[in-house]
């Protein structure tokens, strides 16, 4: 694999950018693999990469029914943070943020991580009390977080309207949080996995599992049958659909989560701002677009398009908090199908079928989890035992009752 560097960029630029080799190899399906990963989103690709890199398992195929990164990984709003409440979540998401901090170097691919800070707002005295508790819990977990007064927020985000319909009472910031480039994360992992020998097969939908005596032996696909010692499901909003094919049910509801971007502007907002109560968050990309999102449309959906009532709610909240944005034109609006669990904690690890694993339930917030999700899933699949960081994220927690209720930290705050 050719490395990307300043010298290689300059050299290609001087030759008119002709002759760049493809970043990754688009493969045809083979007959048999050690591991088949279903879904070429960030989680599937990262799992394949760490299987090859950390565990030497390179006879791996990632099967994708559409195109690489065309699911939620290419549709999300790129918020990257680790300010979770419960210690299990904090340890996992902090590991992920640490991996993000070194990811461009690790993958030799610029993922454009921008640690511009992520600011969570409170709009009442009581909410501020709850936020203070949350911010303190984060610090006790060893993660940076700082409570800010309205005056400090006004200095940090000059465009904000502190005296809005629901006035800003304060907030807290994780300065190491921010955004990164979602397509680059998908392509960076694909390129690095491909270089280690992983086959990435697009336009190949898994239609069924071949199961022998409660043990998976392979998959049926739209491009033929493929044998596999182990299979890992990484299909986000389609987790229930694939689980049903393997004969079990999961605690997942699929919903449409939408987002939208405006026309590009000169830099005017250099922080990610989130308001859990008025259900809106906003950031500005490096291209200048204002990215806005909120909660999911509140009913089951596989339609991959967002409804008008929620769009209106998001924009009303945006304009009240940032009156200057009222004159912006929206360029695009879209949705992805997110897989929401009852406690908004992911489902990772074993399934009732032997050698069949699942990484799902990522809901509205699994983009930031891609590096640690891939690393811990690869460990889990390679060793047939959960990685310590995800030992409590298994399906069995719904039987034992040991739920990890991260509603507060991941409800609307992606």
């Amino acid at each position, binding site marked *: 694999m050719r490395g990307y560097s300043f010298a290689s960029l300059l050299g290609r630029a001087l030759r008119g950018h002709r002759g760049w080799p493809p970043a990754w190899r688009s493969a045809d399906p083979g007959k048999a693999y050690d591991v088949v990963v279903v879904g070429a989103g960030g989680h599937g690709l990262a799992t394949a990469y760490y299987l090859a890199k950390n565990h030497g398992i390179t006879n791996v195929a990632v099967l994708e029914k559409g195109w690489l990164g065309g699911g939620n990984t290419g549709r999300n709003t790129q918020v990257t943070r680790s300010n979770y409440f419960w210690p299990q979540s904090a340890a996992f998401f902090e590991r992920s943020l640490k991996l993000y901090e070194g990811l461009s170097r690790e993958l030799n691919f610029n993922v454009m991580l921008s640690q511009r800070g992520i600011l969570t707002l409170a709009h009442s005295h009581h909410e501020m009390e709850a936020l203070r508790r949350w911010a303190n819990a984060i610090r006790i977990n060893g993660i940076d977080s700082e409570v800010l007064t309205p005056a400090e927020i006004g200095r940090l985000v000059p465009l904000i309207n502190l005296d809005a319909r629901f006035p800003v009472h304060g907030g807290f910031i994780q300065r190491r949080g921010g955004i990164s480039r979602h397509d680059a994360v998908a392509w960076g992992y694909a390129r690095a996995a491909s270089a280690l020998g992983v086959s990435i097969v697009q336009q190949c939908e898994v239609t069924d599992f071949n199961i022998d005596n409660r043990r998976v032996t392979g998959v049926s696909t739209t491009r033929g049958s493929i044998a596999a010692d182990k299979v890992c499901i990484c299909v986000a909003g389609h987790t*229930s659909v694939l689980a049903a094919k393997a004969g079990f*049910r999961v605690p997942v509801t699929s919903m449409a989560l939408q987002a939208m971007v405006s026309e590009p502007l000169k830099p005017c907002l250099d922080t990610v701002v989130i308001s859990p109560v008025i259900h809106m968050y906003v950031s500005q990309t490096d291209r200048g677009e204002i990215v806005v999102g909120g909660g999911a449309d509140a009913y*089951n*959906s*596989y*339609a991959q398009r967002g*409804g008008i009532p929620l769009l209106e709610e998001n924009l009303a909240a945006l304009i009240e908090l940032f009156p200057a944005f009222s004159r912006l034109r929206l360029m695009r609006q879209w949705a992805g199908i997110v897989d929401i669990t009852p406690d908004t904690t992911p489902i990772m690890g074993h399934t009732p079928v032997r050698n069949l694993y699942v990484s799902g339930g990522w809901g509205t917030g699994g983009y930031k989890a891609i590096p640690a999700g891939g690393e811990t899933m690869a460990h889990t699949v390679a060793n047939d035992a959960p990685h310590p960081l995800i030992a409590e994220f298994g399906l069995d927690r*719904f039987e034992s009752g040991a739920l990890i209720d991260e509603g507060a930290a991941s409800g609307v705050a992606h």
Partner: protein
Amino acid sequence: MLRIPCPFCGDRDEAEFRCGGELPREIPQPGVDDDAWSDYLFNRDNPKGLVHERWCHSFGCNQWFNVVRDTVTHRIHAVYRPGEPRPALDGPCATAAKSGG
């Protein structure tokens, strides 16, 4: 925007309603194992296609009722009141009410 035919009030906009989620399976008998309880409490069919679910007309008559809706097209195939039998959906147009948007 969905247009939902409330069986008590008629067609109204989605914004007047709250979705109560997929109809649960039958409540297990006392004494069943943890597996069965956990399945009842947490697991969902979450179908891609027709789903039987509950909606409440919160900003209208405030009554709960049942909806058969397609989760891919969002088309509403039938609505029926609590206690009424599930409508048979054999033909493509076996609707007990007009479709939503």
